């Protein structure tokens, strides 16, 4: 299974035939001999393989950072791929210079990934601050420097570019002018346009679903678990389907297309309107490159018991739309999981939409997650709550819990108990007992069963401590 692919790799047009499931990383290193992009883990957890990918959307190139180890090369057709080699000019860029001067590099293996991520930050964003610049490298792991020199670099460059920002240049002109990027970037838009014109824009497949073994959306889990198998199989890329991405508000509901990425949800003004802390929650979900590719549908159908997005959508009591091309059906997310990694979904069905009611005025939402490492880690336990209250009386409540059951869990009994009850320490204490009856955690690398039980209790309390501090006496809970 091969496919004709046309894209721009750094400063060069590429026309190649590869299995679309081959990872971009393998292509870069083995076929293109661009060895600046490194393989550190092949599971999206180290960032040594970070590249930028630019796509023409509404006549603008939108760049994002991705883990090339998890990106099927079929997804780079008609796009611009930027590796470390594509950032090099004859002289060092200011980022490269500061990385050297500030001790931001030691063994050098992770370094290209950091330089790509940080360069991407200044290319992608409209205004700069050190905190966000550092956060743009949240998917890059360094074992040598302790990150101190890297943070100093981000600080210095941000300061420098903020001065330059006042000029009335376009973003790309600004970063090229400041020598963050080489000059060829100025022409890439035209070149992508002509590439697309030459080839004709991609015609999306209809929704009739081939029964291929692998249907790859973001690939952030499939490409970790099964990349070797994928290379031997016929695959479907979601990007070739009419699976909608995007978020809209309609008839009191928020509707999210299945192919919407975690980053798109995190940055959505609609979501921010109803969930003011959405960025804070999503900051715990994964690295920027992962969130840039991972989709909501993938997160839900993967059925991981600790899936973060799923956890939130469970508490929002979301409805899923499944389509087999000719017909659609709807199912509540909390009824979707039948057992460990078992779904109420037929092989030819794809998850096309997730929707939920816009929270009522007296509703409060909160998300809690604890993992060994706060960022870029998988939850030991996570939990979301949506609660509708009148003073201290609970009208309606939905709570989810991850990492404590074979499936992403909706805490049905606990919610039933709390509905029409009053929020106080005594009620919560009783509810925490019921909650323990609903869960069945196992001991694994993310914690012992005992810990997970205790942690869920703590996170359950944390919801209320955070949302209703005035209604509870903490000492009575702990």
């Amino acid at each position, binding site marked *: 299974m091969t496919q004709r692919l046309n894209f721009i790799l750094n400063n060069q047009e590429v026309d190649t035939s590869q299995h679309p499931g081959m990872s971009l990383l393998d292509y870069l290193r083995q076929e293109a001999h661009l060895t600046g992009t*490194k393989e550190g883990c092949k599971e999206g957890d180290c960032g040594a393989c970070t590249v930028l990918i630019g796509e023409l959307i509404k006549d603008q190139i939108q760049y994002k950072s991705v883990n090339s180890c998890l990106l099927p090369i079929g997804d780079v057709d008609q796009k611009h791929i930027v590796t470390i080699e594509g950032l090099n000019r004859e002289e060092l860029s200011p980022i490269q210079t500061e990385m050297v001067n500030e001790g931001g590099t030691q063994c050098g293996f992770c370094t290209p990934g950091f330089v790509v991520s940080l360069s991407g930050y200044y290319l992608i964003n409209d205004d700069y601050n050190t905190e966000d610049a550092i956060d743009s490298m949240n998917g890059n792991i360094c074992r*040598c420097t302790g990150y101190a020199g890297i943070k100093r670099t981000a600080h210095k460059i941000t300061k420098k570019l903020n001065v330059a920002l006042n000029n009335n240049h376009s973003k790309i002109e600004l970063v090229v002018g400041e020598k963050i990027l080489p000059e060829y970037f100025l022409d890439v838009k035209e070149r992508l346009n002509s590439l697309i014109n030459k080839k004709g824009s991609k015609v999306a497949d209809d929704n009739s679903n081939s029964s291929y073994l692998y249907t790859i959306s973001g690939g952030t889990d499939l490409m970790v678990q099964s990349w070797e198998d994928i290379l031997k199989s016929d695959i479907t890329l979601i990007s070739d389907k009419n699976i909608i991405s995007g978020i809209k508000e309609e008839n009191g509901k928020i509707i999210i297309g299945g192919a919407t990425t975690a980053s798109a949800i995190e940055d959505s003004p609609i979501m921010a309107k109803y969930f003011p802390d959405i960025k804070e929650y999503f900051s715990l979900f994964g690295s920027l490159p992962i969130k840039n590719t991972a989709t909501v549908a993938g997160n839900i159908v993967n059925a991981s018991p600790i899936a973060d997005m799923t956890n939130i959508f469970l508490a929002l009591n979301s409805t899923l739309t499944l389509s087999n091309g000719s017909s659609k059906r709807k199912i509540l997310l909390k009824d979707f999981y039948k057992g460990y990694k078992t779904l109420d979904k037929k092989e030819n069905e794809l998850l096309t939409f997730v929707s939920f009611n816009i929270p009522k005025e007296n509703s409060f939402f909160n998300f809690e997650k604890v993992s060994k490492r706060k960022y870029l880690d998988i939850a030991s336990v996570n939990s979301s709550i949506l609660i509708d209250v009148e003073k201290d009386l609970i009208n309606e409540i939905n709570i989810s819990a991850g990492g404590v059951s074979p499936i992403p869990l909706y805490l049905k009994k606990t919610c039933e108990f709390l509905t029409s009850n009053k929020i106080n320490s005594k009620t919560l204490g009783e509810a925490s007992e019921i909650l323990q009856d609903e869960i069945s955690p196992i001991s694994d690398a993310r914690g012992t069963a005992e810990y997970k039980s205790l942690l869920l209790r703590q996170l359950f309390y944390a919801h209320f401590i955070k949302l209703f501090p005035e209604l509870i006496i903490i000492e009575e809970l702990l």
Partner: protein
Amino acid sequence: MKNYDSIEHVRGESLFVDDQLTPIGTLFGYVACSPIAHGRIKNIDMTKALNIKGVKTILTAKDIPGENQIGGIIKDEELLADKEVHFVGQPIAFVVADNQLIAHEAADLIEYEFEKLPVITDPRKAAEAGELIQPPRTFKLGNTDEAFAKCDFVFEGKVESGGQEHLYLETQGAFAYPVEGGGIKIFSSTQGPTAVQRVTARILGIPMHKVEVDVLRIGGGFGGKEDQASPWAALAALGAKILNKPVKLILPRQQDMKITGKRHPYSSDFKIGLNKEGKILAYEAAFYQNAGAAADLSTAVLERTLFHCTNSYFIPNVKATAYCCRTNLPPNTAFRGFGGPQGMFVIESAIAKAAEKMGMSTVEIQKKNLLDEGDEFPYGQRTEHCRIRRCFKEAEEKYNFFEIKKRVDDFNSSNKLFKKGFAVMPVTFGISFTSTFMNQASALVHIYTDGSISVSTAAVEMGQGVNEKIRAVAQKVFSVNSERIKIETTNTTRVANTSPTAASKAADLNGYATQKACEILLERLKKVAAKELNIEQHNNISIQQEIIFNKDEKTDLTFDKLIQIAYFNRVSLSAQAHHSTPHIHFDKTKEKGKPFAYHSFGVGIVEATVDCIRGTYQIDSVKVVHDFGKSLHPVVDKGQAEGGIVQGIGWMTMEEVLYNEEGQLLTNALSTYKIPDIHFSPDDIQIHFLEDAPNPYGPFQSKAIGEPPLMYGIGAYFAIRNAMKIFKPESDIEFKAPMTPERVLLSLYKKTFVLKPTN
């Protein structure tokens, strides 16, 4: 000061083993490993695997032409398991195929039959069963029995510290190809090129001169590639030799994590005795080291635990015993600190316990017992140029302990659910290989006729900046532009019989050797210049910034010209020199001597905030005063300190190596084994270079830096612990590292939380 390696790194142009262009026809290897932790191999069926298209060969123990033995200190480890397997992941067969994908697929199809044997993963159980790799060793000073009787307070306790995965970003790997005359050339990602050469020669049954090992640089080592890079190079060489083709072997991350050894977990007991003023009068410790299935470097690591069992304190009566326990885990190995951190964690725990029970502050006890000039360590060496009190005083003044305490107390009294804690961590670390014979290095320096200079040494560049330090040494001797100097790859044909780049010693040993070789050349050049300038006393000649001076007068002679003249006068422009550390010795029969050239000193202060509802924490700051000597490269040295600190914090907090009872590694990927990321690493890391601290035992008064800063990370454990104690003073917190969020939460709530029985 320019850092040439860094410039390549930031452009992605520096090459690692897997980046080097390989010849057409290169084959790829994959290691087939034992799925069980202990057993006898009854049968290996390779039929299905060999049927895969593209498989060239599958090699097992019987295919090894030489001796199937890779053990370094003790010869107790096979390259490929022959009759028995001793840990999950022990290599049994080596598949060579057209590409890695095919090799992997074939390896998975090999079928084994085992007779399973009992599995031990706990070092104390191993000791009980008599599974000791060597007899226990004991270091003694004074008489602890008599001293304990005189103490006002005596406390005992148990301390556990966990393993640590090196997680060098570049996994283990090598590329080998056959050369004429039955030889092999290997590009290896190793800290020990000679170890690779020796092991490969032994495996192939050929003399060492037929094996050339070349190391351009490595993508992080931290000890993990000191001895444990050898098997992968030897396997690639075996494949190359047998098939007469180039063979590359790069371990995929999860396999690297599963089958290579890590920092040794320790389980230890202590007994500490003090007078009521807080002076420590006696200390006893027993260390049970989890060595894994073979000796590897464990005995040497354990020795350093004993050397550092009293950290920065003078204790007049000490008895410390160490047990090297054989278990069915991958053989654990060197890791930055090399047993020192494990020893220091125990004495710091003992002091913390004493402080808690006596109602004194830990800092007060620490301060009262710091080493003075001339104090004796339990191994007989006395301190010289002892700067631990100076570092402590400077840290106290510079960072103002009183203000830190006040800030922490204020925070704690105004916050109910978040608590802060801080801890002080003094570090005294001995510099030298404790095996005296290893303290040697040599350098080979060429000056080419165009005046460019080439330096080869035994040192491997792995991010620690040793190349820049060696360049600085050569540059200082010749007083020429640094652009002239190239630091070559580490190559066993150019520099033979190398000690591994380890023990923080590479810059010292190779720096001195380089200095000597450059001085030999300088002496020759001075003579040439004197003759050219018709000056009798060549000692009056000097080179200053590329220009030749007579006494302090500038001459017309430049370095370039001088080199030309020397060449046409048939003066050798190459020199080789050897350096061995003087005045060091250690007598293992008495456990006394002077094993270290000198000590490295410093003090770190760590602050942490704990979320007492969720059990999570952050490390707010690390503030250090460290004795760098007279730094050869401040950017490099500061980076070593910052990086070491964060690695040490990782070991004490989130880095948790978990095996189940069958010896299977549970944390075998970056998704389950977490190291500090950019957000966890403290934003506030301050490194103050102790001023006016020349080191007479280091090149140009410099000091070793690689390992010591890691141990400031131990302060993170105690900072978190102190915060927890503020929240629940009555909580019983075990001395058990890493202090994961799980340990924090369970320690705080275990007493009140009753787990319901599962249905």
